[in-house]
């Protein structure tokens, strides 16, 4: 059994930032990551980040991952396990994980779940055909393994992920036939939409996919215009010739470990699904269990970094490590600023219902 101050599940932006912050206060950290590398979704983000210049804005996500990884490697307080999948957190405070074909047991004084999110799926005929992908899988194939997912893609969803992945597909030399979006407006940042449009990719709002065509693999798709009640408009169906359908229809928090640990959960449409009730320091209703990043509510990487810092420093304080109180206030203020605009409205609404 391994003992440590803080065990962190997930080495994405939240987990990495938390590990560094807790270590800075003097805490010993075990960081578990299911992938064979650190960075989580950051490693697939080839675009420059938005946000404040003080928090990595202008840097490309993949470079932020490298920046964090280099610091973590040098940090003697942090022990990293890659290829390690967390399995369960039990009543006696033991965390188990599968790592290199073995089970490891860890007894941490505090736990941070920064497990991220999983992609949502939408129902349509033939959505199990090879060639129907989640946007995360498309990014993994292209940006991690250098494999083209197809030649011609229909993107479903005009949120930031759908828009950004469309742009990355074009950069990889793959054609994007259209981006369709069920809502009446583009959900992602308009600047992302504009940069795709001027490359000639249509964005069809009030449109959805009815079925994928093909026997062994995707050979096309039937799309339709829909009305404000999301019902197909008769006579507005049309066939598109594509070999790939990419779904970017939202994410939901990957919260199974928190359910198992007994945390009080609440359904929040604004935050993407069931999320744990938390206090202003990101501690759940189970004492010593913290959350940060998408598992706490679907947001984006800059807020995940800030939440990671907050959870890491809060866990350190819980264990009586000396921390700078001003730093805590500064992180909270930065989070508030980031969420203060119109695009952060749904986050503010969601948090109002789950923060105690």
């Amino acid at each position, binding site marked *: 059994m391994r003992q440590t101050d803080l065990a962190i599940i997930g080495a994405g932006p939240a987990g990495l930032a938390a590990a560094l912050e807790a270590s800075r206060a003097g805490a010993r950290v075990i960081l578990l990551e299911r992938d064979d590398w650190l960075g989580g979704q950051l490693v697939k983000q080839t675009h420059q980040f*938005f946000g404040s*210049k003080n928090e990595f804005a*202008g840097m490309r996500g993949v470079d932020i991952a490298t920046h964090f990884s280099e610091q973590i490697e040098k940090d003697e307080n942090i022990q990293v396990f890659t290829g390690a999948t967390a399995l369960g957190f039990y009543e006696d405070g033991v965390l188990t994980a599968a790592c290199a074909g073995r089970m490891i047991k860890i007894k941490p004084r505090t736990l941070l779940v920064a497990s991220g999110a999983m992609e949502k799926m939408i129902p349509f005929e033939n959505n199990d055909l090879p060639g129907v992908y989640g946007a995360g899988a498309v990014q993994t194939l292209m940006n991690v393994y250098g494999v083209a997912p197809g030649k011609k893609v229909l993107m479903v969803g005009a949120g930031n992920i759908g828009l950004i992945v469309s742009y990355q597909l074009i*950069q990889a030399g793959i054609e994007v036939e259209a981006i369709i979006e069920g809502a009446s407006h583009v959900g992602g940042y308009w600047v992302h939409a504009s940069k795709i449009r001027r490359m000639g990719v249509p964005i069809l709002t009030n449109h959805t996919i009815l079925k994928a065509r093909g026997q062994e693999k995707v050979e096309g798709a039937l799309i339709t215009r829909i009305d404000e009640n999301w019902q197909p408009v008769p006579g507005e169906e049309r066939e598109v010739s594509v070999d790939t359908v990419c779904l970017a229809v939202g994410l939901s928090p990957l919260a199974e470990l928190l359910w198992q640990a007994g945390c009080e959960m609440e359904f929040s449409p604004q935050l993407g699904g069931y999320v744990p009730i938390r206090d202003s320091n990101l501690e759940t209703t189970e004492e010593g269990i913290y959350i940060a990043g998408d598992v706490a509510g679907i947001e984006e990487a800059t807020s995940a970094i800030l939440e990671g810092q907050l959870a890491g420093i809060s866990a350190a304080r819980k264990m009586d490590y000396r921390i700078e109180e001003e730093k805590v206030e500064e992180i909270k203020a930065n989070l508030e600023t980031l969420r203060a605009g119109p695009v*952060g409205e749904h986050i503010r609404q969601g948090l109002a219902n789950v923060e105690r």
Partner: protein
Amino acid sequence: MLKKDGVPSPEELQEVKPSFERLQEGPVVIVECMQEIPCDPCYYACPREAFRPFDDINQKPEIDYKKCNGCSICIAHCPGLAIFVLDYPYSENEGLLKIPYELKPLPEKEEEVTVLNRAGEEIGRGRVVHVLNTKKQDRTAIVSVAVPKDILMDARHIRLRRGTDEG
């Protein structure tokens, strides 16, 4: 309309256009950032402080066109690739457009390219005058294209013609 399909309407564009008088004076920036999103690298990019300081990072950028000399440093610093520089009086018949460009291969100097508008429609031909791709730009190249003056305000992207039948 931006919200509807990613293409700004004439009314939306009006909000971000420098005046015609300023355009006639020489190179100037046009920042097509029309939504309040949390982002501020443009302010830090400008050595002449032509971007007014943000009280709140969700504000849209405000530009002091008297301070802007069209130096183009900000183009590669905008995560939204929403900044362009226009030189209206570039030559008698042509204006010069500077765009951020992140596709491979990069165009070459003197190459003739197809010019696209904000909806990706072909609106003419242009001539690449310069391609800047320094380390500081972090892989966002800046391509300068001479285009007929009458399409300068609509031209926002290029497509290479090599390898096509037209090329």
